[in-house]
């Protein structure tokens, strides 16, 4: 039988035309190099294909990071974590595991790494998650650890990367790892990030998320990119025993008289524009069309500015500052996280109340020290914008206060998740909502979202 030499070329695999070899359908003839080429994701399939036909494959594809991993502390898996791991192993070490935030998804991934003891790339959405993964890896393993992203480009036996860096450097990373872990895997199917999976030859793939469904429906591509959903548990199945219970308290904050007048004036202006041009706001697309018009169209621009201004008033009503202080007064000494989407508000709260702030502008060093200090209890409160959005582990926080937000389903669940970390006692989540503005709707939407989740899980 024929011999095929398979090589890796910047995110693709290539072999020369060989007499007597049938070409798998995912290969295409590339006349630039007179050879057949396929995306690296098909590496395992290609091996299977050739071997099944009795061909010999001279395999130059993987160029794995050298090294080793030793387990320095035993990983204790809860029942469902063990089940999840076994389900994934049964599926030839491919697939997505769906578990609620706070249920210890990371531990399952660490157990997968411990099982295979192979070079592993972990892809995460944020720098905070990189920090968190790093400390978890160091806690359980002794190994060479690399950070890829946020200005660093180190490759280790276990390498942790952001989605952005992994996307940009997909060609370089594509053949260096046998296992690739996608944390918060619901990010992966987007048209850019999916290339991290497509340009990688890693045969073992693990995806983790609490919320696999995407509004654009692209989660149907999980089987191709990572593998099928092999295990799934919802909040309801785990709460009580494994997850802390929590209360949601909604506080409606009234606008001051002059804020209200200004708010109504702005909304009127915005709506007048919509009416005049017959625009119905049904989806984000309609909104984008206004933004597009606003380039040169004065009216459109003014309408847009009016909308932004109104939103700002609703989100940052000065009354909210007063109410925030009232809420805080009840929680002196508790572990408190305050969320607000608006970075100006973050700064205002930080400066006025002397609470450490974390935004995308916070310098690396300060961010690490503050988060670590919050974990150990040295700092009792932090105020943050969206950077903590997903999966960041802030153990022992028992009070969360949301000052603004867009009310999307995923965001709300994930944020809740942060106070859901297993701990003693109850957790409280406050929502400060501006009354009689668009924001009340946001609030009720959030509750529905929560209801949905509980119902469907």
């Amino acid at each position: 039988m024929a011999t095929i030499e398979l090589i890796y070329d910047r995110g693709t695999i290539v072999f020369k035309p060989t007499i007597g070899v049938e070409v798998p359908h995912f290969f295409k003839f590339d006349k630039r190099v007179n050879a057949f080429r396929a995306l690296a994701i098909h590496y395992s399939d290609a091996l299977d294909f050739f071997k099944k036909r009795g061909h010999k494959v001279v395999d130059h594809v993987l160029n794995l990071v050298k090294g080793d991993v030793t387990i320095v502390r035993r990983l204790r898996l809860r029942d469902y974590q063990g089940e999840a791991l076994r389900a994934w192993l049964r599926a030839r070490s491919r697939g997505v595991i769906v578990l609620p935030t706070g249920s210890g998804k990371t531990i399952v991934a660490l157990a997968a790494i411990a099982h295979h003891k192979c070079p592993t790339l972990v892809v995460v959405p944020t720098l905070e998650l990189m920090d968190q993964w790093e400390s978890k890896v160091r806690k359980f393993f002794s190994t060479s650890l690399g950070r890829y992203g946020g200005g660093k480009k180190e490759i280790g036996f276990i390498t942790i990367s952001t989605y952005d860096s992994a996307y940009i450097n997909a060609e370089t990373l594509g053949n260096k790892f046998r296992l690739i872990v996608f944390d918060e895997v619901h990010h992966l199917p987007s048209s850019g990030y999916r290339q991290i999976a497509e340009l990688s030859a890693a045969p073992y793939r693990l995806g983790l998320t609490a919320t696999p469904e995407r509004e654009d429906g692209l989660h149907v591509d999980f089987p191709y990119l990572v593998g099928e959903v092999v295990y799934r548990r919802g909040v309801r199945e785990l709460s009580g025993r494994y997850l802390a219970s929590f209360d949601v308290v909604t506080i409606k904050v009234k606008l001051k008289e002059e804020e209200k007048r200004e708010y109504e004036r702005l909304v009127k202006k915005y709506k007048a524009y919509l009416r005049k041009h017959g625009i119905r706001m049904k989806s984000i697309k309609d909104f984008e069309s206004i933004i597009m018009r606003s380039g040169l169209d004065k009216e459109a621009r003014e309408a847009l500015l009016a909308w932004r201004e109104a939103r700002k008033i609703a989100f940052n009503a000065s009354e909210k500052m007063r109410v925030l202080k009232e809420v805080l007064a009840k929680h002196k000494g508790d572990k408190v996280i305050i969320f607000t989407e608006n970075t100006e508000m973050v700064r205002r709260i930080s400066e006025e109340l002397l609470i450490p702030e974390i935004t995308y502008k916070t310098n690396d060093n300060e961010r690490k020290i503050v988060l670590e200090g919050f974990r150990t209890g040295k700092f009792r409160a932090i105020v943050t914008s969206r950077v903590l959005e997903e999966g960041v582990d802030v153990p022992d926080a028992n009070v969360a206060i949301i000052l603004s937000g867009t009310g999307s389903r995923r965001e709300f669940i994930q944020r809740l998740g942060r106070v859901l970390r297993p701990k003693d006692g109850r957790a409280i989540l406050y929502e400060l909502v501006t009354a009689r503005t668009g924001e009340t709707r946001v609030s009720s939407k959030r509750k529905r979202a929560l209801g949905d989740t509980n119902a469907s899980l």
Partner: protein
Amino acid sequence: MLPSDLLVARARGGFVYPLYSRFLDHELYIADQLIEVFRSNVGRERGKLENDVKEIESEAFKIGCDYRFARGLAHLLYRRANFTKPEVKVSPLKARLEIFTEVSRRFGGFTLSEEEKREVLNVVARRLGLSVEDLITAFRAAYEDKEILESFNEISAEELLKLYNLSLTQTLLFKALYLIADVRISGTDAKILLFNVKKLGLMYVAEKTSDGIRLYIDGPASILKQTERYGTRIAEVLPYIMAAREWKISAKVRRRGRTYKFYITNKLSYLFPKIELRRAEYDSTVEEVFHKRFQTLGSGWDVEREPEPLVAGKSIFIPDFAFVKGNLKVYLEIVGFWTRGYLERKLKKLKELKDVNMILAVNERLACSKISALGYENIIYFKDKLSAPEVYIILRKYEGVRLRPKVRRRQEEVPSIPSEVEEFLNRLRVAKLSSIVSELEKYGLSVSQIVRILEDKGFKVEWKGISLDSVIVRKTSD
């Protein structure tokens, strides 16, 4: 390059084109205003600069500019600005951490009144030996808008608009699926262009056209799926294409879920900055030394440093030198680091260059594998330095002179040998070429003539290198 949301472009009939600045009065006015804002804010806080810039942006909008235009210009100016941290008595990080720690210790995480806040600031200020104002300054120094604009790299309004036009084009190409460039280009510029194409992980296919070369540029995965993956890198290649004497660019570009064609030629080059690639730098000293040596040889051949690129198969071959004499043209390519496989591929490429005279000079010292017969006639091996006379010997072959063990001088070129020279040579047994040259130079003989005379007189000239010190001349007829 600009953030994608600042791209101003129109789509029409399947084509998309950026809305370039045509240096109209109001555009120049806005550019001037913005430059002035940066100039006058040197030494001030970033926050102040940002406010001033925003004011110009809204002024621009009022006089009918797209707000993305003004913001785009500002973006380019920010990139020419250097910011430094404000001066503080204690590092901002230290000040902040001390304050946060104190707040947690004293008040459980936050201050809820002015009194509590003052208390914390007083305690920390005293501990650090600062005034409360200095402490607050240090606390705030962590904010970006407290940075100081230290310097600003000046630019004229017109140049700024040209830079903007280039950036707009690059930003449009961020979403390019592929790019086709038709260029008339010098060898050096082509080398820089292709070096960058390869360095960026892109691929190209070259084709010879009636008036130059056509390059298809995309990436490895492009044949497998339409992808914007290589767009940002294609955008980076753009200036290198625009540096060509003549260029035409067409690209397939995605925009808002649809695919458009983009087309532009050097007829619009007045819209863009003049792009000068760094040139005239020799790739290596080997080439530089060789070039100088060859010119002093007095060979009668003209040497060109920047021959035009040649298309070999699907790729481009860029020789280092071209030697021209009348209608004759011979190319020379110097091979640095090489493996046997590399050399074989190179030779294969050369075979595709029909009707092209090519000499290959291979550096033995940089070999990664053993040399053995490769079946190419015009191949010279050298160590460290390439011998100009050796190349000349091969060139003579093209002049119609057959190469023999000894190079036979042609009648008209025979230098008349003074009797003093004859005597000198009669005494000579072994010597460095350098000492012979210094002895015979005074008779008006060039190095190549001396070499020819020596070979004629039965001396063996051993080329260990180009340095005349390393050439040993030995009498063989004894």
